[in-house]
Every structure is written in C-alpha cells, then in structure tokens.
C-alpha cells in the first residue's frame, strides 16, 4: 500500500486554513489554550533555534520574553503609551539587551554557555524583583489592556486575539524557517559542527553566533508581547529560572532541534500542566520523571518519536521505502521533495 502523495503547498495551506478556523470550530477554552501555546511557543522556538542551529542551550531566553512584557506594562500603565509604540519599544529594548549580553555570551560554548546564560537570566530576574520603583517588584504590574485593532477589541474577543497572534506566530515561524534554509543557517550549522573548521575557512564565527543570538532574542520578545497583552500582567516570574527551565523542558519533550518540536513540546507541556493539576498534586514529580525518560530514551523528543513511529509503520506497509531520514530535520517542513 503506497502512501498518498500530498504536495507540500496543499498541506501548508490546509494547516493554515485549519488554524484560522479554530475560533469558529473550537471552544473558548481551546482557543485560550492555543493562545498560551503560541506565546510560550515563541519562547521555546527561540531556545530551539539556538540549540538546533548553534548547538547551545540558553537559559535566559525568558529574559527577552519578559523585558518586552515589562516595557509594555510600564509604558501602557504609567505613561498611557498605546499599541503599537509600546510593543515596538519593548521588542527594541529586548533586542538591545541581547546585543549587550551577546558580547559576553559568544565567548563561551557548551556547558559554560548554559551556566553563563543561567546567571545572566537570574540577573534580570533579580533586577525585576528588586527595582521596585520601576517594576513594582514581586507584585508585578497588572492592568495591561490588549489593543483595539481595526475597531475590533482584542480584549473582548478571544477569537480576534487568537487571529491577531496567529499572524505573528506564523510570521515568526516563517522567519526562522527561512533563516534555517538560508546560507546563514548553513553557516550556523557549520559553526555548530566544527567551529575551528569554519574559522579556518574564513567565516566570521563570532559574528555568526552573535547574530543568531540576537535573532533568537527577537523571537522570544515577540512572545512576550502577546503574553503581556493576553494575561494583562507581568511579574518577575516571567523572567525567572522556572520559566526558563519550563521552556527547556518543552523543547526536550518536543524535540530540541526542530521548530515543529518546539511547538509540539510547548503544547504537550502546557496541556499536561492543566490536565495533571486537576488530578494530582504531584505534577512536578511526574514532569521530572517524564523529562528523565524522554532525555534518556527519546532524545529527539516527541517529534522524533512520532517520526520514528511513522517511519516504522510506513516502511512496513510500503515494502521497504527509502530509509528513515538522518539528521535532516531542519525545517518545519522539508525543503526538498
């Protein structure tokens, strides 16, 4: 039995159509879940981009996520600066911060990279928590209102907010996928695989890593914009170690090297979060064990596992087709047919 052949464009369009249709075919609760998965998903995407292209794990992506959120909060509640200026400033500052910390961060690799970003992330958290005159400390800032766009209030209508966010979410994914596919992505992966070789070949290794870091921060900060607008608040928890670790967990669960894995992992984590907490108090224990199992036995995460499962079914039914792909899981959708 041969698998029916679907052209990539058809699949893309139907996925998009389904996504757009969600507010009309699904319950309010599901729409809310999708919104959450999207903004946390962007945070996870930024982590996965760095992990996949540069091979480094950053535990400070939530800082960029939170910085844009905080600026929206401060500008809107204190100075009544509306959309779109507030989010533009927020994203701008986050990118600026990435430009600054990037200078420190590009000098290290591997485990040192992880630890340095952990400490830098904590620095931002400490600032958010202690600079009470600006950030209102641990109490956080509430009363953020989502904007009114083209006369439709994002605040009143969850469906409208969902669509508004979907536009940017797809944009971010398209952006990252394009980066991955471009020569830039190729160079990044070259650096990931052998930095010395790339340096010898004359590529500006440090500059490449720096740019990648800034792009990733940019993506995370966009997630932060929607987080602030949807929840209506921001507090130091958004830039805390917990949030960073949760995005790492999402990435591992879904598959740390692919964009699809990032989103899938976020969806799994956030759904489990809600489902489990209704049943048991041992949410953390279960997540810890799950995490352990995934790391040890399914390092490519759920996306990898799904793919393996599918490959094994497909190879059995189509009588030995081409072998399961190797490390070519580089884009949301394959670049070659």
């Amino acid at each position: 039995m041969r698998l029916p052949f679907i052209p990539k464009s058809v699949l893309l369009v139907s996925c998009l159509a389904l996504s757009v249709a969600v507010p009309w075919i699904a319950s309010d609760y599901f729409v809310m879940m999708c919104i959450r998965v999207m903004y946390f998903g962007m945070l996870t995407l930024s982590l996965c981009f760095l992990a996949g292209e540069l091979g480094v794990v950053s535990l400070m992506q939530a800082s960029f996520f939170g910085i844009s959120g905080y600026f929206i909060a401060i500008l809107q509640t204190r100075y009544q600066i509306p959309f779109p200026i507030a989010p533009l400033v927020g994203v701008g500052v986050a990118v600026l911060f990435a430009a600054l910390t990037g200078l420190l961060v590009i000098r290290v690799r591997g485990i040192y990279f992880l630890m340095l970003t952990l400490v830098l992330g904590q620095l931002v958290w400490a600032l958010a928590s202690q600079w009470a005159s600006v950030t209102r400390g641990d109490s956080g800032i509430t009363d953020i209102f989502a904007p009114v766009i083209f006369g439709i209030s994002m605040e009143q209508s969850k469906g409208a907010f969902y669509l508004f966010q979907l536009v940017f979410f797809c944009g971010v994914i398209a952006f990252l996928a394009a980066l991955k596919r471009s020569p830039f992505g190729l160079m990044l992966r070259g650096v990931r695989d052998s930095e010395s070789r790339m340096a010898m070949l004359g590529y500006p290794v440090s500059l490449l890593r720096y740019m990648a870091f800034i792009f990733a921060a940019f993506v995370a900060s966009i997630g932060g914009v929607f987080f602030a607008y949807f929840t209506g608040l921001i507090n130091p928890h958004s830039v805390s170690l917990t949030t960073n670790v949760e995005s790492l967990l999402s990435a591992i669960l879904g598959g740390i090297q692919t964009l699809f894995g990032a989103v899938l992992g976020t969806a799994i984590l956030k759904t489990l979060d809600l489902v489990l907490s209704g049943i048991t108090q041992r949410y953390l224990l279960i997540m810890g064990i799950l995490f352990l199992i995934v790391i040890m036995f399914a390092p490519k995460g759920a996306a990898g596992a799904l793919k393996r499962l599918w490959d094994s079914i497909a190879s059995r039914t189509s009588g030995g087709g081409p072998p399961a792909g190797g490390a070519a899981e580089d884009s949301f959708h394959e670049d070659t047919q």
Partner: protein
Amino acid sequence: MNRKKWVAAITAVFFIVCAMAGSAAAVDEIRIGTIGPITGWATIFGQGCLNGIQLALEEYNNQFNGVPIKVFSEDTKADVEVMRTKLDSLKNRDKVHFIIGPSLGHEGMAAVDWGARNPEVPILIGYSAPEDITMRKATFSVVRPGWTGAQVIFNFGQYCAKDLGYKKIIIVGQDYSYPWDQAAGFIRGFLENGGEKVERIWHPVEAVDFSSIMARLMQMSKEYDAVLNNSGGAQVVAFFKQWKQFGLDKVYPQILGQANVPIVSMLSELGDSALGVYSSLHYYDGNPSQANQKFRESFNKKFGHYPDVIAVQGYDAVHVAFKAMKAINGQVDDPKKFITALRQVTMSADESPRGPFYFDKYANPVQNIYIKKVVKKDGRLMNEAVKTYTNVSQFGPYVDMADKYMAAPATTRDYPPGDKDAYFKEIEKYFGKDYVEKLKKNNGWVD
C-alpha cells in the same frame, strides 16, 4: 519526506478533535471553584485555605437544600499567568457558580482584574490582603470575606505607641507589596498616636542570610526601642533563629510581628523563641468563643493539626456563601442577585471563629482586630488577645474620610514617610489640617 507531512497533518487533526470536545455541564448542582497555590513554595497558603473550605462544606454535608455541591479545585502554583488560565477554565470549562480564592497578594490583584473583566462569576477572595482589591480596584463581583494588610495593623501601631510606650521602631521586612502595606498601616497608627520614628529595612523576598541585618540592628539598638519582623514563611524562621544567635534578644524586648509571623503553623517551628511576641490580626487562635473552639477541634480531628488564620478564610468564605444562598433560595445562576446577597451577609460571633463581621460598601469586612501575644498554655504555644478593637473597617480610623484615604498616594516601600514631621506634613495634604489639629488635641485616635 512525505511521511513527515502526514505526521504534521494527523497531529493537527488530533488537536482539532480535542478542541471540539467541549465541557460537560451537569444540571441541578452547585459548582464551586477554588483557586490557590496548592503546590510549590506557597503551598501552606493554598492548602490551608482549601482545608478550611473542605471542613466547612462537610458541615453542610456537601449539599445545599438537597442540591449536591461539586468542587473544582485548581492550583495556581503561585504563578499568576497559570492562575489567570485556571480562572478562565473554571468559568468556561467547569462553569462554576462562584470561586473562592486566591491566597497570595499578587494573585489577588490579578484576580480582581479578571473579576472586573468577567463580572458573571463572583469571586470570594480568600487570604489575599492588598487593600486595593476592595478599594481603588473594587469591582461589584469581587467580595472579600477576609482582610487587608493595613486593616489589621493600624491599631497595632497605636498599641505600640500608646500602650507599650515605644517611640522609635525598626521594621525589617520582605520587599514586596504586602509587607509594604503592613508597614504603612503600622506607621500611620504609630506616628499618629505618639510614636516618633519608624525605620524600614527591606530585604529580598527569599533572603538567605540575615547576619548583616542583625549587625545593623545591633548597631541601632541604642537609638531604637523595638524591632518588628515584617515577613512570612521561611524567612521568619531564619530571622528568629539569627536574632537569638546574634544575641539581639538581649538588647531589644520581644520581637513584634506582622500578621504572618506567629500563626499557628509557625509557632511549632519557632518554639519558645516566639514567647511574648506581640502581633495583631482579625483572628486569634486562643479565642475561647464556641465558634472558634468547635472550628479548631473539628479541624484538628479531620486534618491532624490545628488550623491557623489561613484556614479560617476558606471556612468563613463557605459560610458567607451559604448564608447568601439561603437568602436567595439557592438561585446561584442569577449572578447579580447572588452577589447582592453576598454583600449583605452578616456573621455573628457565634457563627465565625474570628468574631462578628459585616461587609462595608466595598465588600470588605468590618470586624474585630485583636492585639495578641504568644503565651504557653497547657504546654502548647498559642496567641492570647491582650486588647480588642471592635468594628474596624479596612480604612481603620479613616473610615469617615475614605475618599481622602483612597486619594492619598499609593503605598510604596518608602511611603508614607517614617519620620514624624515628614509624615504629618504629608497627611496634612490629603487628610487636612483639621484632622491634624484633632490628632494633636486628642493625643491620637479616639476609640
């Protein structure tokens, strides 16, 4: 390659199918949502309240007039974003008739925000104490059968100045809004009743080591009369420990505590170092009233340890809800009627372990405030009341000038000023010269 697209497609379909699975809404039952930090560091604030709720519901056999009650218990994990999500799911998925909770300060502020945007679901605030929930941010659907940070401490400041005769006090506290509120309330009571100066020292919420602060306190001991520990939870344990370690118990009298310091759950860990600690609250565990004794004993029987004020909040919230339901014959599906009834509930001293209370127009209780002291009775540490102030509202002594109070600048870590002259200059601006004159004439507040 092809297969990968199918994987994506099937995953998408799977999620869509899940999406369409709506929620089950049963008929003929009363659905209550509870929300609070059940797991994580703040678990005592969430679990305690939940225990109180469960105990109260049991007293009614988990039903109202034959209609069964279903409880949907949600965990915020002390994360406000999660709380917001859970509030939405309680409303949309579980379709609860009302919600009891949350417990933490910032949770409460976010909850009242949500309540303003979702006025069809009444919220009975549990332990959250920021005053703005029932002042500047008050909204019709949010009722608080609890307390505010300042409400329980205005009179404590008064007591320390007038009855204990202190002139200068240091407040050491965790740096976030709830302790700011407590400090502010204390300062008002203290400076307006004869006190001269209050110095505030703030430390990070999760401070690890107090030794440097102890050193400073030691240095200040010549000038200041007493120290008030303005923290909660683990920091209190560490503070008391290091207080003794550094010999500060020899230069200062007993520690003064904010509301969360000598609560029952803390006393067992603090041990004898807590003896003599003064504090103030709208509830004291040593209250000999029938309502309190019955509450304490049945709680102990059910949960194996004695309750503290956190459980009282959950307990009282349920009783308030039931009284309101009785008044409207169980028509909880008419939110407006239900909320109006809630706001009109009064509880007598026989009905609530804390004493009598009724709601002011902002839906915060007007209740007794007890100045209490930790003593040992029958080998067990407990709080006894040394003075009671009755009918205290969230505006405290400013109840006749509520608008002026709310128009005053918001409390921050440095506001209101802790120095007597600066303070009086400030209050003249919004309370008026007449008020200041009256204070001087009466030497403080008149009961």
